[in-house]
Every structure is written in C-alpha cells, then in structure tokens.
C-alpha cells in the first residue's frame, strides 16, 4: 500500500512525473524548493544510477555530483545550467553540457529545461529533458 514519505507534491509536478514515467526521453524534475524529486528510467541510463538509490537530494548537490561543465570544459555554475536558468529566471533554457554519471562515464548531453508555472503563475519546479549526443565538433 502507498505510504507517505514526504511533503505532498503539487499537481503540475505530479503530472510532469506521470508524463516522464511514460517517456523514453530522459528527464528529471526539480521542485520549487530546489530539490531533485524525480528522474525517469530513461534518465537512469545516462545518470548511471536508479533514482530509487539516489533519492530526493538538493539539485545543487546533484549538479556537483555529475560534475557539470560547459562544452569547452569549464565548470558550470548552478545558475548557468539550463535547469538553473529555468529555476532562477523562470524562462526556458537550452545548452550543450558535459556530465559524468555515477557510473563514471563522461557524456555530452543536450539539455532543455523549462519552468513549471501554475495557473496563477506560481513556480512549481523545473522539468529538464536531456539526451546524449556525440562529441561535439570544435566550436559547437
């Protein structure tokens, strides 16, 4: 039977998780407090660990654990990641980043994030979809 393990999630987050659970496109969700609350099975392949093992953690810690960097290799500040831009500036963002999964594999990833704004324009979180790309050509 279902059990209550945390704070109730808002409806936009619930719907986004439901969508992600039915997609083959990797995605992760951050809530309005900046906590990573979910990623789907497709994302587990790139992140290198099941969500059930990682659990809910601050998005900042999640970004640091994946050692996010820009396409030129310079470390990405939290505010400069697509999810960070969507969270702090409440606008969609897209970027090519590199990330090292929990499996130790470094990958080039295209990531698009957008804020989940409710019917009264309140921020419920951020949904990020991402996909692995081949090593980009110089200047990409």
């Amino acid at each position, binding site marked *: *039977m*279902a059990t*209550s*393990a945390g704070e*109730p*999630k808002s409806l936009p987050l*619930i719907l986004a998780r*439901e969508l992600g659970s039915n997609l083959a496109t990797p995605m992760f969700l951050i809530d309005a407090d900046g906590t990573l609350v979910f990623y789907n099975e497709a994302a587990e392949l790139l992140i290198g660990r099941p969500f059930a093992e990682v659990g809910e953690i601050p998005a900042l810690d999640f970004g640091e654990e994946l050692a996010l960097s820009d396409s030129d290799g310079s470390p990405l500040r939290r505010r400069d990641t697509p999810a960070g831009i969507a969270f702090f500036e409440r606008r969609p963002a897209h970027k090519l980043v590199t990330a090292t999964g929990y499996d130790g594999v470094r990958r080039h990833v295209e990531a698009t994030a957008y804020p989940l704004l409710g019917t*009264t324009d309140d921020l419920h979180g951020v949904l990020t979809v991402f996909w692995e790309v081949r090593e980009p050509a110089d200047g990409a």
Partner: protein
Amino acid sequence: MQARVWGCRGSLAAPGPETLRYGGNTSCVEVRLDDGSTLVLDAGTGMRPLGVAIDRQPVDELHVLLTHLHLDHLQGLGFFRPLFRPGVDVHIWGPASPVQSLADRIAIYLSPPLFPVRLADIPARVTFHDASDDAVSIGPASVRAGKVTHQGPTVGYRIEEGGRTLVYLPDHEPLPGGHVSHEPAEWMSGHDIAHDADVLFHDAQYLDDEYPQHIGWGHSSIEHVMGLATSAGVRTVVLFHHDPYHVDDELEALLGEARKRWDGPDEDVRLAHEGMTIELDGEGVRFRGWGR
C-alpha cells in the same frame, strides 16, 4: 454540518426508469454549516430542485463552490432560483485560469445563444472568487481547494467544521493509467486534500474492467477511488459521479466491487443517491435516507 445530495450523476443527466434509485441529476451537493451558512458544491442539474427548496426558506447569502466548469457541473446555475432574487449575495468560487477570469468563463455559458439570460443581468449580487489553496473561512468552516487531475483546471474542496471533515472530489483521475497502490502518497493527486476525511465524496465512474478504455478521460476506476481512500485514511467513502450509462443494478454491482477493496465495514462505503443526507458532528457521521 449536514450534507445533502441533489445530484450525483456524472457527465450527462440520465433520467428514466432505470436510474430512479440513485437519480439522474448531475453533480450538486448542499452543505449546511452549524450556523446556517449554505454551501453548494457544484452547479449540475441537481441545482434546480435545490434552488426550489432554498426558495421556500430564502437565505441572504450563499457560496457556490465549483470544482470545474464542465457543463455537468454548471448547467444548473441558470435555473437556480436564488440567483433571480434581488438582494441575495451569491459568492461563486472556482478554479483559476491563466487566461480568463472565472466570470468570463462562466459567461460563455450564461449568454446567448447558449442561454437566454446574460450573467450580467442576473438580479442577485454575484461575486466571483478564485478557489484558494489556502484555507478560507466561510461561517464557522474552514474551506480549502486543492488542484487535482482531471481534464482542464479542476479542484476538490475540503470543508472542516467542528472537528469533522468533508471532502468533495467528484471528477478525478488520481494516476492516469497507473495503479494507486503502487505510488507513494505524496505523488498521488488528491491525497493531500482527502487525508483523514470523515466523509469523502469521490468520482467512481468506471468499473476496473471499463477503465482501460477510458484512461486520460479524467475519471476514476474503483481501484483508484478505493486505493486513494485507503491510502489517505478516509473513514467513509461516498461513490459519486455515476456513469450515465450505468443503470441502478449496475451501480449496485459496482458498490459490491468497491466494498471488496475495503478493509472496514461495508456501511462505510456507499453509493451517493439523490436525497442522501449526511450529518457530521461531535457524535460522528450519520447517514439518512434509504441509501445502501
């Protein structure tokens, strides 16, 4: 508080000899608070006979709490007699939209060619409110809305008074295509608004074997409603929003299926029917009417 069902049919009014026991009017529940304050949950066709009853003992003020604006929850509004009585204050609450005000959306229905009377020409003093996630006081009650999964902006209402809680979730699909019993409670639409309710009115439109053909339509299977009620620690479940194609005998078969999924006494799970009256007070929850 006391709740009385004036309409419990879903989607479309379904009058006729095969729906006499549970009724054919669409969603409308009257709630009288201990100080006499009147709440009306949804404005389906059951609102017409409710308006006649209120007109016999007129009130100065009432609150209409709309869960959403599908016609089966709105169609009775134009036939609600208190709206045509000057001097009555009618407060209409409903889900917010990022595009149009609640008044503008309701006026789409209450205007020609769909309806002969314009909303602006209604004699009563009508005030519109966006349903609030935060608790608001209406008379002695605390009323809170919670957004839930349906088609389009939709809320459920939680009404607390005198230590008792009534929750109204007439149109709700907690996990489209999913199994409620597999999900953590915090990820379940409706769990927050329904938790620990003494009485939960809940969508029970489909038998479990009907649901796969209706995933995403915004309504619950028996597994959904009973799973949510159990997970949320609800004490009494009133199965509501009956499918217009379900005749009385089929509803009673559905009730049997629901009770199989309930660990408590059978009488804690009931089928809503027109005329069902529920008293909630310090002594507990009591049903009146013939209901099963």
